[in-house]
């Protein structure tokens, strides 16, 4: 059992633009021809190793594998794994590598998938590592943008909320900078601004236009995409800071009054208060469709990672 040719997805930057385009193409084809894919993974097993709780990501991975005809096993919290007994991640992964054909892993520690990929001899898909990366959410976002707008170029994208710890934000920015004429409006309280390394090494390096602001309403009329995020309680060490910042932005009908008619409102979910439920009725609300798309792009990704493997 060797791992030299194992196809992992740790970071969205691991994928070329062509690979992303191909995944979107396959996902779109799956949406149109579900039956044609129903037995593509017969006899294959996906291990979902979730050391941190998740609803959407874990269930969408499991749904994706089941829809491809495969089977799933795994755990949904660290407490129900041998991690609770003090086992290292490396040992857990080496063991599970013998039980399944592919692993989707979420871990609260940043960089954990790199450790996993080094030990595993089956493909590892990063299903989120702390506040660091969440590449399959980004693929979901790209599929959603591409389906709603018909393009991944020429877009003004508002990113709103926790831009500091929001891993979906970091991955989305890293992915979008490769497309032409992308402009970002970075909307956050000053405590939750995009980290400096993202500004310097991703936006500035790629000569991407951006504006940092704490005023959502001011730029609403310019946006093609408004990507809302939750202020994540689990990323704060200080309860007081969390309480102060958690309801900083609440998107409601009134704030949308100046927005474009074809604005696409996205959110990786779960939401708490940052999008009022009255917005759900608005045709521009795309977040549930975004969650459904997560299954199809993960199906495409599983197929890609298992391609050519016995």
């Amino acid at each position, binding site marked *: 059992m060797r791992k030299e040719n194992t196809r992992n997805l740790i970071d969205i930057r691991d994928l070329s633009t062509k690979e992303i385009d191909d995944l979107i193409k396959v996902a779109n084809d799956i949406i149109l021809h579900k039956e044609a894919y129903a037995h593509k993974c017969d006899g294959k097993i996906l291990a979902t190793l979730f050391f941190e709780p998740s609803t959407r990501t874990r269930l969408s991975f499991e749904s994706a594998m089941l829809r491809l005809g495969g089977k799933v096993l795994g755990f949904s919290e660290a407490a129900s794994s041998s991690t609770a007994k003090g086992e290292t*991640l490396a040992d857990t992964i080496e063991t599970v590598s013998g039980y399944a054909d592919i692993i989707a892993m979420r871990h609260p*520690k940043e960089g*954990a998938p790199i450790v996993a990929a080094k030990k595993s001899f089956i493909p590892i898909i990063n299903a989120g590592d702390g506040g660091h990366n969440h590449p399959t959410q980004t693929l979901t976002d790209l599929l959603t943008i591409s389906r709603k707008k018909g393009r991944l170029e020429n877009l003004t994208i508002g990113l709103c909320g926790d831009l500091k710890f929001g891993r979906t934000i970091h991955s989305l920015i890293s992915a979008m900078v490769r497309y032409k004429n992308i402009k970002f409006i970075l909307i956050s309280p000053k405590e939750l601004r995009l980290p400096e390394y993202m500004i310097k090494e991703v936006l500035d390096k790629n000569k991407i236009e951006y504006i940092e602001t704490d005023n959502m309403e001011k730029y609403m009329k310019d946006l093609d995409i408004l990507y809302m995020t939750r202020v994540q309680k689990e990323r704060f060490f200080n309860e007081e800071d969390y309480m102060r910042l958690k309801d900083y932005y609440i998107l409601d009908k009134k704030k949308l009054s100046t927005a474009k008619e074809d604005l696409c409102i996205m959110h990786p979910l779960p939401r708490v208060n940052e999008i009022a439920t009255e917005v759900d009725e608005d045709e521009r609300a795309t977040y549930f469709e975004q969650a459904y798309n997560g299954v199809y792009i993960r199906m495409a990704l599983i197929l890609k990672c298992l391609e050519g493997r016995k």
Partner: protein
Amino acid sequence: MNIDTIKDGYVIDHITPGNAIKIYRLLNLDKLDCQVALITNAKSKKMKTKDLIKIGKLIDINLDKIAYIDPKATVNIVKEDKIIEKKKLKLPETLVNVCKCNNPRCITSTERNLNQIFNLTNKKEQIYRCHYCESTLEKDHFID
């Protein structure tokens, strides 16, 4: 001030004032049983003032550690009272087990038997990032 010349060993020269003590600590020179001289603020034609370290034994030294602290330093290897090699240093592309990641959310904070690895991501500004979590390395956050 007179410091004995060394027969076999190293002279780490042209160290930016203030850095010699960091190199001394990082190389664990206090653990050696040979003569070690640490000179600070010595006069220098090139640098006005400089630090230098003399080590009276040919031990294994990790040049990456010295280069990380002070890439402008030079390392002279002395054998039989003669300098046989002058090593110019350059900022290492990767640091392994020299510094530790300060991010409490990094996998290196909990996983045992994991090398602490940092990659040079910005040569001009000498920025290193953790191989795992990509946090910026805080200068002088050395492994004990």
